[in-house]
């Protein structure tokens, strides 16, 4: 294994510990961001923003959150849908109670509230491990969804039980509500996801991230070398829920515009995000993006091919789509259990030695 490219010398510790130590990686990331921020907005349509781009960004953010908890800290959680619901309802309450509040502040506050709820539901993780914990987090899932269904205060006693995002502006641009333009919504999500991803990338390689990984690899051993499981696990729950809460906030306010808890935040939401994390690669921020792209694009592609290409009925196509998705997931797990991020790493490894493979 080579970890450094030939010809790229590091002369200081800072340079060696940079976020992207490889020059090509750095160029690639900057180029990608430049395209995403400067080129894509010119080609965006209402459909592509709604169905693909914003969809992708929201799930990428949720996947980063779950990846911090499951991939880095090793605590399997099935409560993602419930935590997204917390983010969404926090956004709804904040934006209706305080109409003057900036939407960015609202999203961050929603994340903060979700972090608090996440820590509450993370407390059992100190005693319960593995699958027992996974099932225990389902308690959060079902309880939170039930709570948002039953307690009228959360949806302002609206007769349908639905929550609808009120139109809100940031710097004079309309972000939420039906009138918002797709470009603005896309850029808003993209900015938040970019910042969040950079923060996450730096968190996981710092002290906190190393603590998490030690807990993941073997919590007793980690405890013996002086890592406090209480702090490490709860901080993972807090940070992870913060991200998931922000994702839930964007999911509701920017992407859907209106939501109803039983449908929008059900358990399949939790599974969907967990799939993204596993297929993308556990313990990889890049993987969260790759997995989200895969899980968002594959169903859309399948549907387009079957309905438009072969003229399937929509209902039958849905069944075949579910079936194909299941088969693809199994296939991926068999071929590469460490996810798309590992495939990318293998590709890089091969390129490094090309054209002399030995």
């Amino acid at each position, binding site marked *: 294994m080579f970890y450094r490219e030939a010809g790229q010398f590091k002369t200081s510790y800072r340079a060696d510990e940079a976020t992207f130590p490889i020059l090509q990686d750095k160029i690639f990331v900057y180029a990608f961001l430049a395209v995403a921020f400067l080129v894509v907005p010119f080609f965006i349509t209402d459909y592509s923003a709604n169905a693909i781009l914003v969809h992708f960004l929201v799930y990428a953010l949720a996947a980063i959150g779950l990846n911090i908890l499951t991939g880095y800290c090793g605590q399997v959680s099935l409560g993602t849908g419930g935590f997204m619901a917390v983010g969404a309802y926090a956004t709804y309450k904040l934006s209706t109670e305080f109409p003057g509040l900036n939407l960015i502040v609202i999203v961050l506050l929603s994340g903060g509230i979700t972090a608090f709820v996440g820590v509450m539901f993370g407390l059992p993780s100190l005693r319960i491990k593995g699958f027992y914990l996974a099932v*225990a987090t389902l308690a959060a899932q079902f309880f939170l969804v039930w709570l948002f269904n039953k307690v009228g205060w959360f949806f302002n006693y609206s007769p349908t039980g639905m929550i609808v995002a009120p139109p809100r502006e940031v710097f004079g641009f309309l972000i939420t509500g039906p009138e918002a333009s797709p470009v603005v919504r896309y850029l808003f999500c993209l900015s938040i996801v970019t910042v969040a991803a950079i923060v996450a990338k730096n968190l996981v390689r710092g002290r906190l991230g190393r603590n998490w990984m030690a807990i993941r690899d073997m919590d007793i*051993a980690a405890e013996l070398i002086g890592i406090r499981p209480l702090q490490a696990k709860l901080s993972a729950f807090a940070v992870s829920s913060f991200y998931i809460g922000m994702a839930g906030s964007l999911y509701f306010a920017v992407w859907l515009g209106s939501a109803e808890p039983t449908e929008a935040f059900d*358990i399949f939401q939790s599974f969907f995000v967990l799939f993204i994390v596993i297929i993308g690669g556990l313990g990889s921020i890049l993987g969260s993006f790759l997995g989200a792209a895969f899980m968002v694009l594959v169903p859309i592609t399948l549907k387009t091919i079957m309905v438009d290409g072969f003229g399937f009925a929509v*209902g039958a196509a849905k069944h075949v789509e579910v079936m194909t*998705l299941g088969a693809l997931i199994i296939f991926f797990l068999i071929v590469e259990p460490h996810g798309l991020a590992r495939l990318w790493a293998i590709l890089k490894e091969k390129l490094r030695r090309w054209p002399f493979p030995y």
Partner: protein
Amino acid sequence: MLFFLETVITGLLAGVMYSLVALGFVLIFKASGVFNFAQGVFALFAGLALYDFIAEGGWFHDLFGFVLPVWLGIIATMGVMVIVAWLVERLVLRHLVNQEPIILFMATIGLAYFMEGLGDTLFGSDVKPLNIGLPNGAVDFLLDNYNLYIEKLEIFAAVVAAIMVTVLAIFFQKTRIGRALRAVADDHQAALSVGISLRTIWVIVWSVSGFVALVAGIMWGSKSGIQFSLSLIALKALPVLILGGFTSVPGAIVGGLIIGVGEKVAEIYAGPFIGGAIENWFAYMLALAFLLFRPQGLFGEKIIERV
């Protein structure tokens, strides 16, 4: 008082139904360490297959012009479940040996998706009433003399569950295959080294849990028809599992009974005060509360961790 008694008995019987599903989980988890999320979908699939063998509107009737008698239909469905078990081993498990538990868990969720889509594609997604001549309605004797409303079907399910657990216990304790199964459950590698074929064992275990799923499918199908929501009973069985412990057959039964009673009593006596419909999460909270005191569940093996 009478009402309370009726609540408790109904709860106990509902708990038996949960136990039926939980049992399938435990069998597979014990023998292969796989947390099989697809168990609920197995029950759905078995129910759908059975319906198609014995009902007028099914495939079998369309193909051959007659339907199978119920007992033959059940045997044929069992055959289908064995084939499914064999395919699962051949196509999925065999390639995932030595992977981490979460990967296997995700694979079974993928399997659940796949079988759900397959079931819907093959058999259609409308609700199918399953009628194989199981008793229905209230038990007259209790209703007349004590004014207790108890479903005959649920009594029947409880009896079937009791028989099944006994048969399974004998199968595990007394037969050659049962001994091999327990050996595999204890230690995969040691079992391999004394000449037990892991692959055969896995096929057998998945077949047995397919059989359990078939029984669960028949019971739930007779109660509320065979439909998509049948696959969601897996979610009902999960709290039963963590309460009883993943590795314990008696745990699945006792856990089911506790959850069943707790759920019904809470729904009736505490539900009205906090808005009702608490059945969905109450079981999880109950299980969570138990777990805080016994992290391995009531009957699970003590978790010993070493560095």
